[in-house]
Protein backbone atom coordinates (compact mmCIF):
# COMPACT_ATOMS: atom_id res chain seq x y z
CA UNK A 1 0.00 0.00 0.00
CA UNK A 2 1.59 3.32 -1.07
CA UNK A 3 1.77 6.19 1.40
CA UNK A 4 -0.90 8.89 1.09
CA UNK A 5 0.87 11.76 -0.69
CA UNK A 6 -2.07 13.14 -2.68
CA UNK A 7 -1.82 16.60 -1.06
CA UNK A 8 1.88 16.84 -1.88
CA UNK A 9 1.14 15.89 -5.49
CA UNK A 10 -1.48 18.65 -5.80
CA UNK A 11 0.89 21.15 -4.18
CA UNK A 12 3.74 20.09 -6.49
CA UNK A 13 1.71 20.62 -9.68
CA UNK A 14 0.24 23.86 -8.30
CA UNK A 15 3.71 25.24 -7.61
CA UNK A 16 5.14 24.34 -11.04
CA UNK A 17 2.15 25.65 -12.98
CA UNK A 18 1.82 28.63 -10.61
CA UNK A 19 5.43 29.73 -11.16
CA UNK A 20 5.01 29.46 -14.95
CA UNK A 21 1.66 31.28 -14.81
CA UNK A 22 3.09 34.16 -12.77
CA UNK A 23 5.92 34.49 -15.29
CA UNK A 24 3.46 34.46 -18.23
CA UNK A 25 1.38 37.18 -16.53
CA UNK A 26 4.48 39.32 -15.94
CA UNK A 27 5.40 38.86 -19.60
CA UNK A 28 1.91 39.95 -20.71
CA UNK A 29 1.97 43.03 -18.45
CA UNK A 30 5.47 44.08 -19.53
CA UNK A 31 4.59 43.62 -23.20
CA UNK A 32 1.39 45.69 -22.81
CA UNK A 33 3.30 48.49 -21.11
CA UNK A 34 6.03 48.52 -23.76
CA UNK A 35 3.44 48.49 -26.58
CA UNK A 36 1.56 51.36 -24.97
CA UNK A 37 4.78 53.40 -24.67
CA UNK A 38 5.56 52.64 -28.29
CA UNK A 39 2.07 53.66 -29.48
CA UNK A 40 2.15 56.87 -27.42
CA UNK A 41 5.49 57.83 -28.94
CA UNK A 42 4.11 57.16 -32.44
CA UNK A 43 1.06 59.36 -31.68
CA UNK A 44 3.31 62.15 -30.33
CA UNK A 45 5.40 61.93 -33.48
CA UNK A 46 2.32 62.27 -35.69
CA UNK A 47 1.08 65.26 -33.65
CA UNK A 48 4.41 67.05 -33.98
CA UNK A 49 4.43 66.62 -37.78
CA UNK A 50 0.86 68.04 -38.13
Amino acid at each position, binding site marked *: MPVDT*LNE*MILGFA*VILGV*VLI*YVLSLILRTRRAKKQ*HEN*SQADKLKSTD
Partner: protein
Amino acid sequence: MPKKPRLLTALDILTPILILGALIFILFFTPIERTMGHVQKVFYFHVASAWAGMLCFILAAAAGGAYLVTRRLYWDALSLSSIEVGWVFGLAAILSGMIWAQPIWNTWWVWDPRLTTTAIMELIYLAYFILRNGLKTPEAQARLGAIYAIIAALTVPLTFFSIRLFRTIHPVVIATGGDGSAFNMTPRMLTAFLISLATFTVLLVTLVWHRTRLVTLQRINQQKGL
Protein backbone atom coordinates in the same frame (compact mmCIF):
# COMPACT_ATOMS: atom_id res chain seq x y z
CA MET B 1 7.41 46.22 -33.38
CA PRO B 2 7.52 43.51 -36.05
CA LYS B 3 4.22 41.73 -36.69
CA LYS B 4 3.63 38.61 -34.62
CA PRO B 5 4.64 35.54 -36.68
CA ARG B 6 1.94 32.98 -37.41
CA LEU B 7 4.07 30.22 -35.93
CA LEU B 8 4.17 32.08 -32.60
CA THR B 9 0.37 32.46 -32.64
CA ALA B 10 0.12 28.72 -33.33
CA LEU B 11 2.49 28.04 -30.41
CA ASP B 12 0.36 30.26 -28.14
CA ILE B 13 -2.61 28.01 -28.88
CA LEU B 14 -0.70 24.72 -28.90
CA THR B 15 1.25 25.20 -25.66
CA PRO B 16 -1.68 25.32 -23.17
CA ILE B 17 -3.32 22.41 -24.99
CA LEU B 18 -0.13 20.37 -24.63
CA ILE B 19 0.20 21.26 -20.93
CA LEU B 20 -3.41 20.27 -20.26
CA GLY B 21 -3.02 17.06 -22.28
CA ALA B 22 0.17 16.11 -20.43
CA LEU B 23 -1.47 16.83 -17.08
CA ILE B 24 -4.52 14.68 -17.90
CA PHE B 25 -2.28 11.84 -19.09
CA ILE B 26 -0.16 12.01 -15.94
CA LEU B 27 -3.11 12.24 -13.53
CA PHE B 28 -5.37 9.62 -15.09
CA PHE B 29 -3.27 7.29 -17.23
CA THR B 30 -0.04 6.68 -15.30
CA PRO B 31 0.21 4.15 -12.48
CA ILE B 32 0.61 5.16 -8.84
CA GLU B 33 4.14 4.31 -7.76
CA ARG B 34 4.29 1.51 -5.18
CA THR B 35 6.19 3.22 -2.36
CA MET B 36 5.96 6.97 -3.02
CA GLY B 37 2.28 7.13 -3.91
CA HIS B 38 0.73 10.07 -5.77
CA VAL B 39 3.60 12.51 -5.20
CA GLN B 40 5.77 10.55 -7.63
CA LYS B 41 3.62 11.99 -10.43
CA VAL B 42 5.17 15.42 -9.78
CA PHE B 43 8.41 13.91 -11.10
CA TYR B 44 7.23 14.21 -14.74
CA PHE B 45 6.88 18.00 -14.60
CA HIS B 46 9.76 18.39 -12.13
CA VAL B 47 12.28 16.74 -14.48
CA ALA B 48 10.75 18.49 -17.50
CA SER B 49 11.18 21.88 -15.74
CA ALA B 50 14.81 21.11 -14.93
CA TRP B 51 15.37 19.93 -18.52
CA ALA B 52 13.82 23.09 -19.96
CA GLY B 53 15.88 25.27 -17.61
CA MET B 54 19.16 23.62 -18.60
CA LEU B 55 18.25 23.78 -22.29
CA CYS B 56 17.60 27.52 -21.91
CA PHE B 57 21.00 28.07 -20.29
CA ILE B 58 22.76 26.20 -23.11
CA LEU B 59 20.77 28.24 -25.66
CA ALA B 60 21.82 31.42 -23.82
CA ALA B 61 25.49 30.44 -24.06
CA ALA B 62 25.15 29.65 -27.78
CA ALA B 63 23.39 32.99 -28.38
CA GLY B 64 26.10 34.73 -26.33
CA GLY B 65 28.75 33.15 -28.56
CA ALA B 66 26.83 34.26 -31.64
CA TYR B 67 26.75 37.82 -30.27
CA LEU B 68 30.49 37.89 -29.69
CA VAL B 69 31.07 36.77 -33.29
CA THR B 70 28.47 38.93 -35.08
CA ARG B 71 27.94 41.83 -32.59
CA ARG B 72 24.24 41.79 -33.50
CA LEU B 73 22.06 42.81 -30.52
CA TYR B 74 19.42 40.27 -31.54
CA TRP B 75 21.66 37.49 -30.17
CA ASP B 76 22.00 39.34 -26.89
CA ALA B 77 18.20 39.63 -26.66
CA LEU B 78 17.93 35.89 -27.22
CA SER B 79 20.61 35.15 -24.63
CA LEU B 80 18.99 37.42 -22.02
CA SER B 81 15.53 35.95 -22.70
CA SER B 82 16.80 32.37 -22.47
CA ILE B 83 18.44 33.04 -19.11
CA GLU B 84 15.30 34.67 -17.70
CA VAL B 85 13.04 31.82 -18.86
CA GLY B 86 15.61 29.22 -17.77
CA TRP B 87 15.75 30.77 -14.31
CA VAL B 88 11.96 30.48 -13.98
CA PHE B 89 12.08 26.80 -14.97
CA GLY B 90 14.94 26.23 -12.53
CA LEU B 91 12.93 27.78 -9.71
CA ALA B 92 9.92 25.58 -10.55
CA ALA B 93 12.17 22.49 -10.52
CA ILE B 94 13.73 23.37 -7.15
CA LEU B 95 10.40 24.15 -5.46
CA SER B 96 8.66 21.04 -6.81
CA GLY B 97 11.67 18.92 -5.80
CA MET B 98 11.39 20.26 -2.25
CA ILE B 99 7.69 19.34 -2.14
CA TRP B 100 8.54 15.81 -3.38
CA ALA B 101 11.41 15.48 -0.88
CA GLN B 102 9.32 16.37 2.18
CA PRO B 103 7.32 13.11 2.36
CA ILE B 104 9.97 10.93 0.67
CA TRP B 105 13.19 12.08 2.39
CA ASN B 106 11.35 13.50 5.41
CA THR B 107 13.01 16.89 4.85
CA TRP B 108 12.49 19.83 2.50
CA TRP B 109 16.19 20.22 1.70
CA VAL B 110 19.49 18.35 2.05
CA TRP B 111 22.91 19.53 0.88
CA ASP B 112 23.07 16.69 -1.61
CA PRO B 113 25.38 17.22 -4.67
CA ARG B 114 22.44 17.52 -7.10
CA LEU B 115 20.48 19.95 -4.95
CA THR B 116 23.58 21.97 -4.12
CA THR B 117 24.78 22.29 -7.73
CA THR B 118 21.25 23.22 -8.86
CA ALA B 119 21.03 25.93 -6.18
CA ILE B 120 24.48 27.26 -7.17
CA MET B 121 23.46 27.27 -10.85
CA GLU B 122 20.31 29.23 -10.01
CA LEU B 123 22.25 31.77 -7.90
CA ILE B 124 24.90 32.23 -10.63
CA TYR B 125 22.19 33.06 -13.16
CA LEU B 126 20.51 35.39 -10.66
CA ALA B 127 23.80 37.30 -10.41
CA TYR B 128 23.71 37.68 -14.22
CA PHE B 129 20.76 40.09 -13.95
CA ILE B 130 22.38 42.08 -11.12
CA LEU B 131 25.67 42.47 -13.01
CA ARG B 132 23.93 43.30 -16.27
CA ASN B 133 21.81 46.02 -14.70
CA GLY B 134 24.96 47.61 -13.30
CA LEU B 135 26.16 48.50 -16.80
CA LYS B 136 24.86 51.49 -18.72
CA THR B 137 25.18 50.93 -22.45
CA PRO B 138 23.42 48.09 -24.30
CA GLU B 139 26.74 47.14 -25.93
CA ALA B 140 28.51 46.78 -22.58
CA GLN B 141 25.56 44.79 -21.21
CA ALA B 142 25.59 42.55 -24.26
CA ARG B 143 29.36 41.96 -24.16
CA LEU B 144 29.45 41.12 -20.45
CA GLY B 145 26.19 39.14 -20.77
CA ALA B 146 27.60 37.00 -23.57
CA ILE B 147 30.84 36.19 -21.74
CA TYR B 148 28.95 35.52 -18.50
CA ALA B 149 26.39 33.26 -20.24
CA ILE B 150 29.18 31.16 -21.77
CA ILE B 151 31.09 30.76 -18.48
CA ALA B 152 27.94 30.19 -16.41
CA ALA B 153 26.87 27.40 -18.78
CA LEU B 154 29.64 25.27 -17.24
CA THR B 155 27.29 24.78 -14.28
CA VAL B 156 24.82 22.94 -16.55
CA PRO B 157 26.91 19.77 -17.17
CA LEU B 158 28.14 19.94 -13.57
CA THR B 159 24.54 19.89 -12.32
CA PHE B 160 23.43 17.24 -14.81
CA PHE B 161 26.30 14.84 -14.08
CA SER B 162 26.49 15.55 -10.33
CA ILE B 163 24.35 12.49 -9.54
CA ARG B 164 26.73 10.33 -11.57
CA LEU B 165 29.98 11.88 -10.33
CA PHE B 166 29.26 12.10 -6.60
CA ARG B 167 27.57 9.99 -3.92
CA THR B 168 23.98 11.19 -3.82
CA ILE B 169 20.52 10.27 -2.63
CA HIS B 170 18.86 11.94 -5.64
CA PRO B 171 17.30 9.36 -8.01
CA VAL B 172 18.99 8.84 -11.39
CA VAL B 173 16.28 9.19 -14.04
CA ILE B 174 18.14 8.85 -17.32
CA ALA B 175 20.37 5.78 -17.06
CA THR B 176 20.98 2.62 -19.04
CA GLY B 177 22.68 0.50 -16.39
CA GLY B 178 20.73 -2.22 -14.59
CA ASP B 179 22.54 -1.72 -11.29
CA GLY B 180 19.38 -0.59 -9.56
CA SER B 181 20.44 3.05 -9.31
CA ALA B 182 18.13 4.05 -12.16
CA PHE B 183 14.47 4.78 -11.59
CA ASN B 184 12.62 1.96 -13.37
CA MET B 185 9.69 3.27 -15.36
CA THR B 186 6.77 1.30 -16.76
CA PRO B 187 5.94 1.96 -20.46
CA ARG B 188 3.15 4.37 -19.46
CA MET B 189 5.44 6.22 -17.07
CA LEU B 190 8.01 6.52 -19.84
CA THR B 191 5.35 7.84 -22.24
CA ALA B 192 4.25 10.46 -19.68
CA PHE B 193 7.89 11.39 -19.09
CA LEU B 194 8.57 11.91 -22.81
CA ILE B 195 5.29 13.83 -23.30
CA SER B 196 6.28 16.13 -20.40
CA LEU B 197 9.76 16.73 -21.86
CA ALA B 198 8.25 17.59 -25.26
CA THR B 199 5.59 19.84 -23.69
CA PHE B 200 8.10 21.83 -21.65
CA THR B 201 10.39 22.14 -24.67
CA VAL B 202 7.52 23.71 -26.65
CA LEU B 203 6.71 25.91 -23.64
CA LEU B 204 10.29 27.17 -23.43
CA VAL B 205 10.37 28.00 -27.16
CA THR B 206 7.11 29.97 -26.80
CA LEU B 207 8.28 31.88 -23.71
CA VAL B 208 11.77 32.65 -25.06
CA TRP B 209 10.31 33.84 -28.35
CA HIS B 210 7.87 36.20 -26.58
CA ARG B 211 10.58 37.48 -24.24
CA THR B 212 12.97 38.13 -27.14
CA ARG B 213 10.28 40.17 -28.92
CA LEU B 214 9.70 42.13 -25.71
CA VAL B 215 13.44 42.91 -25.36
CA THR B 216 13.46 44.17 -28.96
CA LEU B 217 10.45 46.43 -28.29
CA GLN B 218 11.96 47.73 -25.03
CA ARG B 219 15.16 48.59 -26.92
CA ILE B 220 13.20 50.53 -29.56
CA ASN B 221 11.50 52.47 -26.77
CA GLN B 222 14.85 53.09 -25.05
CA GLN B 223 16.36 54.45 -28.26
CA LYS B 224 13.48 56.92 -28.42
CA GLY B 225 14.29 57.99 -24.87
CA LEU B 226 11.07 56.61 -23.38
